[in-house]
């Protein structure tokens, strides 16, 4: 492959690197000019992200599916997750515009680090080699730790970062050990070569290392995706992190865990699917959604509640991965991708409302939402939409995602999994609607009955999230087609 072509395929990453550097530089070189223009740096970052998004879409349109720079594959799956990361970051940046200035002076670094984290995701989801998988994960983790602890004077932010870091370090060490087992068994770190070695029996007696390696790798990916029992960092980190970062962790970062899980297992270890990793993921899905939902019921801090909700959502998503035996229409992977795309806008939207309320009241606990329907009909109405989507009520994107994922489970003969999932989605409605109850059924405390206004920087992303949440459910067809195309390309990227 020519250098020119390689660069073209890596253009999104190149653009992101340039954007991050530019934001750092602008912030450093012209601090005084920045002061009066809070929207300048976000605009610059968004412009870079938009360019990267356009090139990514161009690559999707061109049907690119190629091996790049030995260790990377630019294929439908990678491009799908790049789109998710770029959209998520763009929305998160704007959610932070009114959040940051009252809490930290280091606004420029924040945006730049977010763009860097996005770059990390773009690299990780393309990785076709265990080494790059690990590097991409670590790259993302380290930027995430910094962003989680970004509010240095806020004790809880620091605590969250430390917990996240300690847990993450342990998880990545375990994952690395799993990778070393695979390398030991097959003598290669390339995913396709690993699959070849296992398939041809070259691994010999060492083939039995496949199962332990799968378990250990699941720890690392499950940590990022906040699958139980590797989720324990999530509630604390989500609660303590700056809320825009919580939104980022629960969408883009979580999606990355799933992207790597899919790529490493489906390309590197396909022969272990039926007996080893599909049942394992099925069991994890059951534990994750049940635990997430049951604990979420008791939460009164909205960030914590949404943390457990996002753990439960990870459980639903894992159902799709456990059902990957089915492909095509109602295929497991297709369902997972669509679910993740709908979940991106839904969950980000919910966090945007949380941020707006937090900006106005400084509070993130449930009683602060009492009477929100009166104080801001827009925010309350939007949050209802997002919560209904999270609960899987039509005609929202969240419903379509659940519909496809549950369908995949039934099609793969996993009826028990599907039944547990629907029981869970009924349980989940209880705590989602409890928020609605506060907003609509309860009067605002007399002391804080003033109106809450959403600034334009929040309102635009909010409308985007709401429109997409509805569009995925109502228009459906193009999104399903895209998810289907993204899912079949995968193994063809030789």
């Amino acid at each position, binding site marked *: 492959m020519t250098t020119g072509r390689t660069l073209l395929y890596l253009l999104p990453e190149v653009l992101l690197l340039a954007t991050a550097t530019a934001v750092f530089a602008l912030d450093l070189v012209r601090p005084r000019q920045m002061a009066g223009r809070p929207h300048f740096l976000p605009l610059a970052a968004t412009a870079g992200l938009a360019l990267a998004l356009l090139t990514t879409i161009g690559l999707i349109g061109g049907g690119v599916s190629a091996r790049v720079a030995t260790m990377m594959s630019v294929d439908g799956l990678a491009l799908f997750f790049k789109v998710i990361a770029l959209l998520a970051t763009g929305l998160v940046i704007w959610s932070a515009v009114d959040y940051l200035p009252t809490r930290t002076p280091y606004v420029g670094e924040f945006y730049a680090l977010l763009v860097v984290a996005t770059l990390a995701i773009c690299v990780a989801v393309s990785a076709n080699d265990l080494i790059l998988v690990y590097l991409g994960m670590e790259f993302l983790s380290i930027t995430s730790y910094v962003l989680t602890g970004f509010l240095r004077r806020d004790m809880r932010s620091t605590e969250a970062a430390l917990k996240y870091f300690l847990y993450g370090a342990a998880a990545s060490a375990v994952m690395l050990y799993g990778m070393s087992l695979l390398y030991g068994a097959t003598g290669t770190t390339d995913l396709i070569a690993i699959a070849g070695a296992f398939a041809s029996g070259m691994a010999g007696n060492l083939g039995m290392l496949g199962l332990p390696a799968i378990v250990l790798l699941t720890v690392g990916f499950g940590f990022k995706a906040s699958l139980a029992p590797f989720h324990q960092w999530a509630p604390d980190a989500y609660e303590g992190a700056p809320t825009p970062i919580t939104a980022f962790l629960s969408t883009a970062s979580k999606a990355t865990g799933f992207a790597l899980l899919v790529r490493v297992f489906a390309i590197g270890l396909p022969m272990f699917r039926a007996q080893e990793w599909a049942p394992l993921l099925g069991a994890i899905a059951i534990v994750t959604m049940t635990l997430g939902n049951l604990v979420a019921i008791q939460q009164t801090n909205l960030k914590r509640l949404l943390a457990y909700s996002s753990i439960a959502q990870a459980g639903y998503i894992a159902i799709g991965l456990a059902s990957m035996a089915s492909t095509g*229409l109602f295929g497991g992977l297709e369902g997972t991708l669509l679910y993740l795309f709908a979940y991106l806008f839904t969950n980000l939207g919910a966090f945007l409302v949380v941020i707006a309320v937090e900006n106005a009241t400084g509070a993130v606990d449930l009683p602060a939402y009492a009477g929100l329907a009166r104080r801001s009909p827009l925010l309350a109405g939007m949050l209802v939409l997002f919560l209904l989507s999270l609960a899987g009520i*039509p*005609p929202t994107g969240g*419903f379509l995602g659940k519909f496809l994922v*549950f369908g995949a489970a039934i099609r793969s003969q996993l009826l028990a999994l599907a039944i547990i999932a*629907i*029981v869970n989605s009924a349980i989940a*409605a209880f705590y989602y609607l409890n928020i609605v*109850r506060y907003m609509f059924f309860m009067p605002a405390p007399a002391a804080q009955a003033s109106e809450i206004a959403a600034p334009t920087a929040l309102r635009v992303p909010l409308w985007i999230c709401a429109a997409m949440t509805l569009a995925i459910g109502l228009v459906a067809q193009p999104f399903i087609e895209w998810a289907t195309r993204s899912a079949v390309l995968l193994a063809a990227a030789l």
Partner: protein
Amino acid sequence: MAGLLLSLITFIPLIGAVLVLLPWGRWQGWDSSREEAFIRRLALLVSLVPLLLAVVLWFAYDKATGGFQFVTQAPWIPAMGISYHLGVDGLSVPLIFLTALLTTLGIYYSAFTIKTRVREFFLLFLLLEMGMMGVFVALDLVLFYVFWEVGLVPMYFLIGIWGQEKDRPHYSAIKFFLYTLAGSVAMLLAILGVYFDTGTFDIVRAAELRPFAGNLTLASLAFAGFFVAFAIKVPIWPFHTWLPDAHTAAPTAGSVILAGVLLKLGAYGLIRIALPLFPEAAKQWAPLIVALGVISIIYGAFVCMAQTDLKRLIAYSSVSHMGYVTLGVGAAAFAIGLSRPGIVDSAAMALNGAALQMFNHGIITGGLFFLVGVIYERAHTRDLDRFGGLSARLPYYYGIMMVTGFASLGLPGLAGFWGELFVFRGAFDIVRVWAAIGVIGIVVTAAYILWRIIQSVFLGQYDPHKVDHWTNLADGSVSHEPADMLTFEKVTLWPLVIFMILFGIYPTPILDFFNRASMALMGSL
């Protein structure tokens, strides 16, 4: 144009909801009371359109031809074969009319009685109408499911926001939501099962293909998924416990819609989906359905006897009255596969009775809930022990209540009679013993209507000390004497009373609709 009619009926309420949402006050420079008056009129005006179209539909539907008419079919999500498929047959046309009528009356009545959060109320009410209409016109399982759930959300808000504090509206609202949702998700799995077996989400097509034919276990499982969803909505004992809470807590118009239309969605689903798609499984479970129907009839009636709250009493009476519907459907299911002479006629008659009972119960219980609203707005209590001797003070109210109450207990000459007659006439031929037991319900119904309602509220001696104060709705003043019904209350109730009498004396127009559909359905099974 003909194909557009059903879409218009379904989505004009949505357009109305959007119109209600617009900030008219800011645009026109109105103060909030002026704006609220405008919203009330706007909502009423919008709701008249589907009503008018429902009347057009009633007369334009060709009963001689039968079958599905006004069909619209367009691809919605072609990747999965989900289509925007609408159509109506003899079963749905009267129910669409019922929905439009009760919505319009509910909006009209609420325009006078709802004082808080006016914009939200009418917005939600119109969204609710869209959901209900959608269920009655959808011929695609996914579309059906979407509308089914869309109707759920506004009712949750109606109960929770406008419920009376002492009726625990928050608890009732979430209970209503979770019960229905639990049933719905079971239905969702069953819908997926149907799709994987037949390759279609189309209700008409799936009924031809008979999902899981020959595999009774899977068919029963899928049937159970649908049955639970519908049984919760009807509600069939023992799935009924959400109903008394929700009906009691909801604002008057909300209770009217709940009892008048939402319960019918469940019964409609049984007849439209559960029976035609899974006749073998339905046949297998028919004894259980019949038994549950009869238990609902008798249990509901006896529980009514024990109530002290008028609204709760009427709520439980719905459990009992919808039991007749279940009995009719169960008897029809029982007849599947039997080849005795006349059995198909009996089954169709039972089904006709069930459908008639659905329509008439909507009219009658809708009326009863309005009547509860009338007295509650005045006395601020619904405690039966605190009334008595009101016949002399509120003669007009007494008269309307007498007609509605007698219709409810099935007095011949009023609408309620025919549904029960047909159900029992059909069921006696098919499940004699159960039908005989069910008749007890009619006796108990007469007892609670006459004794608990008519006697304890209207007869006896009027005691001015029992009720703290009576509100005069005309000017909001308070006095020790109740004032009789106002014009707006009369206007709300008269259409219902007229239909009770009209269809009581001459049920043929509506029976024609149902009979054609029932015969077609039983013939196809």
